[in-house]
């Protein structure tokens, strides 16, 4: 399989050429365009029940699309992500990687996709009860909102949960608030994640939550107007 990530880092997009008999699995909605000769099948993400669980509790799509080349000549497909930012790839070769919700884009054959219990703290932080764990011999593509940085965690490290994209499973996560409830709210740091262990982590330079928080303040008057109206009716 030939692949090329173009328009890095702001608009990274994955251009793939599938040889006859090859296939790629991609997140629902990731296909931007493709040759009309490729076949597409929709399957449940990791089986029906885990798929359902993931959809309701993990905040990601229930479905996965399989694009396969059943012709005799190479065919092209373009995959992308919903947010603007960088895309990277990992050749697993026995390694494992955990992806935060929204990061996953595609994987090749030979990759095992599992759901991993993330814990209530993660759910509380708006990240879902489950995480994706990918293992095996295939290749995984994932993306970020903004640029991607990698950090080799040696012992322990603290990250803002909204900026964490992926991490190796040797790392244990402890999601908590930065300095108590009041401190967490006032500092604007939200949920922090104390990582412990050894392994590589991937961080995104912007967070969707940050953008949402900014936009919320710009929309604020709507809520206030609504409350004001309620008060008027009560009077």
């Amino acid at each position, binding site marked *: 399989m030939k692949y090329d990530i*173009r*328009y890095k880092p*702001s*608009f990274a*997009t994955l251009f793939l050429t599938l040889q006859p008999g090859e296939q790629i699995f991609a*997140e*629902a*909605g*990731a*296909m*931007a*365009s*493709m*040759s*009309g*000769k*490729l076949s*597409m*099948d*929709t399957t449940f993400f990791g089986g029906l029940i885990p798929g359902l669980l993931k959809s309701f509790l993990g905040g990601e*799509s*229930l*479905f996965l*699309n399989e694009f396969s080349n059943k012709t005799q000549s190479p065919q092209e497909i*373009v995959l*992308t*992500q*919903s*947010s*603007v930012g960088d895309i990277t790839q990992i050749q697993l070769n026995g390694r494992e990687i955990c992806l935060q919700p*929204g990061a996953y884009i595609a994987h090749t054959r030979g990759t095992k996709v599992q759901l991993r219990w993330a814990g209530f703290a993660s759910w509380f932080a708006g990240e879902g009860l489950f995480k994706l764990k990918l293992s095996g011999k295939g290749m995984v593509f994932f993306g970020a909102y903004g640029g991607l940085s990698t950090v080799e965690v040696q012992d322990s490290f603290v990250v803002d949960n909204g900026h964490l994209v992926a991490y190796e499973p040797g790392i244990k996560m402890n999601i908590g608030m930065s300095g108590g409830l009041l401190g967490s709210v006032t500092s604007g740091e939200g949920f922090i994640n104390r990582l412990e262990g050894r392994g590589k982590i991937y961080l995104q330079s912007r967070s*969707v*939550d940050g*953008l*949402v928080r900014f*936009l*919320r303040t710009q*929309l604020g008057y*709507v*809520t206030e107007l609504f409350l004001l109206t309620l008060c008027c009716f009560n009077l």
Partner: protein
Amino acid sequence: MKLELLHQPDSAIAKVHMGPQEELLAEAGAMVAMSSHINVSTTLRKGKGGGVFGGLKRMMGGESLFMSVFRSGSSAAELYLAPKLMGDILPYTLSGTELVIQSSSYLASTPSVQIDLGFTGFKSLFSGESLFWLTANGSGLVMLNAFGSIYEIEVDGDYVVDTGHIVAFERSLDYSISKANKSWAGAFFSGEGFVCQFRGRAKVWCQTHNPGAFGRKVGGKLPPR
């Protein structure tokens, strides 16, 4: 008229050098800055897709009811135009050919280009995108904008594009909007929704990112209006 594109591809802005007595039409709200002697007027397009009804249709298509007309007058002028979203701008020179443009991708055009609103029919209403197509005829310059970068595909045979990723295509292509999957359930669950199937030999321009998908990702976390 001379066109200069700055800050491509992530924050493209068009710097237009206008000669005396020149005119440019643009999407309302696209003007960033201009020489003070430029005369600006607002118009509802006339002809097919114009007038009040055409303007209403354009509004339904997610476009402004109005268009801006910039006239340089007696001396040369400068005009800066930019789209709303981050992304690239594509200049296209029409010479007797016809171009079909996804309406939200239209940025500006010279007056010798005729822009018409073409309605593809009921099918596109279900696609969830503001699938109102503009057709550009005549000869002159059209400026298109995109969310993300723009990549060109030379279609030779069959090619499929997600409706949210189409910027424009040459009219000589045969196109039909259909569901991405054979079954309705599959089309609904696959997340690909509707796709445009192109047939023939001509060019189609795609945007790397889908404005609707990003809008839903961010908009879904905002309080309801």
